[in-house]
């Protein structure tokens, strides 16, 4: 990874603007390699994918609230093990970086194909569901999807909307109640750190 440079600053400027409301946003991008600064196409792709994974219902979806920006930054910084070398498979070769890691976003773009963004939403969803099914059946050529989906979930459920509207958030519960009935409207707590870390 290169260090901070004028070039990376310019290249990252649009993403900086998106993250400017998040404290530390600039810090996040401090080490972003120019090659990892996403193109408008890549951002549109990831936004569309994120929204299909967690769609807008009675709360906004992952694409609608921009969880995809987190995904792209997280991929550049190697969260979910994404900067480790992937399994040896020739299908990954075109998307390998110089350090041997897989450019997950480029891989996803290639996997979905050049026309995917132009498909009707139902077809997009169908194809993404097929990729998802392959990945969770353990198919190596689909495996990188699991990390991307994990980061979409993280981007969504650690956002204010995902964490405190879709789920409940209570930083200061004030008490521990060991036995509470589950009701039809019960929602999980994103602030249940044990569940988040170990569940």
């Amino acid at each position, binding site marked *: 990874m290169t260090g901070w440079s004028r070039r990376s600053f310019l290249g990252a400027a649009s993403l900086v603007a998106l993250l400017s409301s998040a404290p530390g946003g600039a810090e996040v991008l401090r080490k972003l390699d120019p090659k990892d600064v996403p193109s408008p196409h890549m951002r549109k792709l990831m936004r569309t994918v994120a929204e*299909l994974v967690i*769609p807008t219902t009675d709360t906004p979806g992952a694409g609608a609230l921009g969880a995809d920006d987190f995904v792209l930054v997280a991929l550049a910084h190697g969260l979910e093990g994404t900067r480790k070398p992937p399994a040896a498979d020739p299908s990954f070769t075109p998307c390998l970086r110089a350090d041997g890691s897989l450019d997950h976003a480029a891989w996803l773009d290639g996997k979905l194909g050049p026309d995917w963004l132009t498909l009707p939403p139902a077809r997009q969803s169908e194809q993404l569901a097929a990729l998802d099914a392959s990945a969770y059946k353990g198919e190596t050529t689909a495996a990188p999807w699991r990390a991307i989906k*994990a980061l979409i*979930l993280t981007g969504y459920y650690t956002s*204010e909307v995902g964490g405190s509207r879709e789920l409940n958030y209570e930083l200061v*519960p004030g008490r*521990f109640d060991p036995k509470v009935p589950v009701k039809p409207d019960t929602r999980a707590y994103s602030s249940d750190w044990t569940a988040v*870390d170990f*569940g």
Partner: protein
Amino acid sequence: MDDNLTFDAIVVGSGITGGWAAKELTEAGLKVLLLERGRKIEHQLDYETEMKAPWEMPFRGQGDTDLYASEYAVQRLNRHFTEFTQNHFVSDAQNPYQTGDGTDFTWFRSYQLGGRSLTWGRQSYRWSDYDFGANKRDGHGTDWPIRYADLAPWYDRIEDFIGVSGAAEGLPQLPDGKFLPPFALNVVEQAAREKIMAAWPERRLTIGRTANLTQEKEGRGPCQSRSICARGCSYGAYFSTQSSTLPAAQATGNLTLITDAAVEKIDYDPKTRRVTGVRWIDSKTKTRRQATARMVFLNAGAFNSVHLLLNSASEANPNGLANSSGVLGTHIMDHANTLSAAAIMPGFEAWTTFGNRPTGAIIPRYRNMDVMDGVGHTRGFSFQGGALQSTWTAGKREAGIGADYKRHLQKPGPWRMVLVAFADCVPRASNRLTLDRTKFDANGIPQLHIDFAFGAEEHAALAQAKADATEMLTKAGGHVIFGFDRPGAGGTAIHEMGGARMGFDPATSVLNKWSQAHDVANLFVTDGAQMSSSACQNPSLTYMALTARAAAHAVSLLKSSAI
């Protein structure tokens, strides 16, 4: 400040035991210098991430994997290490250590005011005579020169001051303390307790005994059930140096605190055979400073206290200070630690919990007590763990996209239960600390070199722990999905201890029964370094009790001019 600082006592290290030494010595009227190698962290004011939500953090609480690889290669493996707490752990890049061939040791450290008292797991257990008598009974290590009766009043004193919540169970292997009201077992754990006890009366699933207040105590607020303790707690609801011992020491007016002071040597006068003070490097100015005192308490953390003694070698003590026996650095230990069993617990789908309990459940030791029923090992193991529900993170492991998947992740997930074993680690001479003569830190001080491996006893204990955990969770109605019988790397339990062991004989031990160096009457080592065996329960409460006891003894010696 001039460098002719003179005190009654110098305490090196401000963590769990250093805070206690400072409190006890200042309250006895001594003028005390407390030296801390790390930065100052002010209670409440400097807990920078305490109230942050994930969406207020650059990496949403997950942390920057790139940064962790370059700066926190070891610390990131600590279970309390997150983006919220990373500033409470050392940079591994700036604080390197070496390990021998075949040694896999994760040394978790917190160099800051309060040390690891800010990040500890808070589990607080008394040791019993099964523990203090272990070495004598099976011949490993050297016999402890103390027994439970020597320490019981000191455990009382510590618990009274720090506040430990827990349930009395009347178990001889885990003596009851002076407890604040316990946190409750959750609905699944309560059922498991009953089913396990019905099948095995000697196996007692109970709530963890934790240094979190369940009632207000002397200006400290009760626990708010956040379970984010390692960020720092402005309520002062868990025991830390900042919340508890430091204010008490400062209230005496007898304490001088200097942070950013990395002690490199203890000064020794061969004529009097006494230590005379310490030298340190001011890590901000890179200048060397010193102070003198009538006695020194080492509380730098087990391995760093040993490191300091080894690095204080002199013409009079060529193998290190207080090391005429040659055993300094040897017989280090850490609990052999693994996830013995994890199970899905069906039948509780109608129930959930509210709030985050800051402790799990435990099953105290039940093997090798009055009947030697361990298979291939002579000591004990205990379990920590509990029942928990999964949440959105479980979605990472599940196929699915779309609205139904989102709805599914909105609900509290299925119940699981885990039992994590902590097995007694036999003291061995081959597990030892030395100075690396070829690698130095930024101040030119030799790095610590760790040689460590678990042996047949620990592996046998964890094999039995896995079998036992599996049968208990099954009996409790669970479906066991996996479990392990191999220990994690040394250091995983964060109970590294030993290296300056206590014993009767100056020829085979470093410290006497008062945590006082056999060789140097005014030198006390009261952190984990003093331990002669490891038991299978968390050691911090015992370190604290030994510290308070040693401080009282030291004060009496000082007042009678014996030192």
